[in-house]
């Protein structure tokens, strides 16, 4: 059901942990849906020099967190903002349809962390898009 890449990032997640006194921190998801993702940022000269995550969630949530952190590390804040959930899923060689919302979560958590960073810096926050079409978490999957 999962690609090799998903399994790899699930079993050996990169950038796990916290950053003390982070420049930005953000969280997405809620326990009702079974996943929460928390992202810590270290930003130097508008570049993300370090990023860490903690995730409660299924394998694809953990893999998405891991991959998303890899993808934005070393990027400018603006580049990081433009990371889409699709890019995360593609970098993982795809996610099962029912798990696509995990990649959305990663995008949202990064957005939340970046806006937190901007707020900390006194910058106006950027507008977050909604991904409602993918997060029908509580629809019944049974007949």
């Amino acid at each position: 059901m999962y690609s090799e890449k998903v399994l790899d990032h699930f079993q050996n997640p990169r950038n796990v942990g916290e950053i003390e006194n982070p420049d930005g921190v953000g969280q997405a998801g809620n326990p009702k849906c079974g996943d929460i993702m928390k992202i810590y940022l270290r930003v130097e000269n508008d570049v993300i020099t370090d990023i860490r995550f903690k995730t409660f969630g299924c394998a694809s949530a953990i893999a998405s967190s891991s991959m998303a952190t890899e993808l934005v590390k070393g990027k400018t804040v603006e580049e990081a903002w433009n990371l889409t959930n699709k890019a995360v899923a593609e970098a993982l060689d795809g996610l099962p349809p029912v798990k696509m919302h995990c990649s959305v979560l990663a995008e949202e958590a990064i957005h939340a962390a970046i806006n937190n960073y901007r707020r900390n810096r006194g910058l106006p926050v950027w507008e977050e898009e909604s991904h409602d079409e993918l997060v029908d978490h509580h629809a019944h999957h049974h007949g």
Partner: protein
Amino acid sequence: MSRQVYLDYAATTFTAPEVVSAMTPYFTESFGNPSSIYSFSERNRKAIDAARQKVADVLGATKEEIYFTSGGTEADNWALKGAAWRNRSKGNHVITTKIEHHAVLHTAQFLQENGFDVTFLDVDAEGRISLDDLKKAVTGKTVLVSVMFANNEIGTLQPVAEIGAFCREKGILFHTDAVQATAHVPIDVKAMNIDLLSLSAHKFYGPKGVGALYVRKGVRIDNFMHGGGQERGRRATTENVAGIVGLGAAIELTSGRMKTASARIGGLRDLLVEGVMKTIPHAKLNGAPSGERLPNNANFSFIGIEGETLLLDLDGAGIYGSTGSACSSGSLDPSHVLMAIGLSHEQAHGSLRLTLGEETTEEDIRYVLSTLPGIVKHRREMSPLWEDYLKSIEGGR
């Protein structure tokens, strides 16, 4: 090959080799259609008859009361829809519980969409309904009560005999989904006043795709599978002879060793539960205490971890367990059973069911006990919920 520990016997069992041997002749040799009158099918008719008798013996029924189906789901569908449809002129109220298997739950929802009122009874923290609740729920229009014998996720046994006595007194049909219980714990449909009972072969070392519905003599329910006159006109389709023979062989085998198996497997389960509770901090055992639950069932919640994560990590270590019920593994909903016993979403999402069986050994359990704590620790360390939880209990102190 590295160690493999299958601990998902409640999802399905292997088909016992002796059961497979019993089935084999009915594929290529004795393959005649049992409804055909020629002598060539005589052996098949007798084999079906013998299997029916074996099921009846285990339930305390007569063989005329046993109807074969394609599994537990069909038996549940038939029981609920058949009883409701048959009695809809008498009343349109059905009572069941919040912790039924989806085969009952979704069938009850189908009835709701088709003009029935359905009451879903609450359960207590151990997963048991209260007889008082049941009594209060009954109205003049109640035609059917369906309460499972033992829960598939947490193993809790229901007060079936009491429910049966009450329903019989009220003249209300009583169905029990005994898919998890049959051949594993003693059942007596007469003493327990059960009118309808569902069972499924692949839960007791029989093949998948075959089950049975017990229908008490004199109880009439509408047909569910319409067609030919098989099963004395009550369930159509060419008989799955090999499957039925397999069901018969399996129920005899499994119920024959019920006592010794329960003792052995129950002992291993207790060892597992004790070990987990001792070695993993903040673990919670879901369900009723040993003795009031299926002997092979253990169900834990590990706050801070999501169930799929656990399953995959265990899988990596060669341990096969489940979270929630097997059939909902593709789902994102937390288990409705765990929610019904009052768990938080976090706890419900972080549940692990380990169910033991014939091939489970003490080494298997020791292997699990040596593996699971590390996995839980590792995943908790990367969980923001665990962090929050630790803070909350520190704060509480």
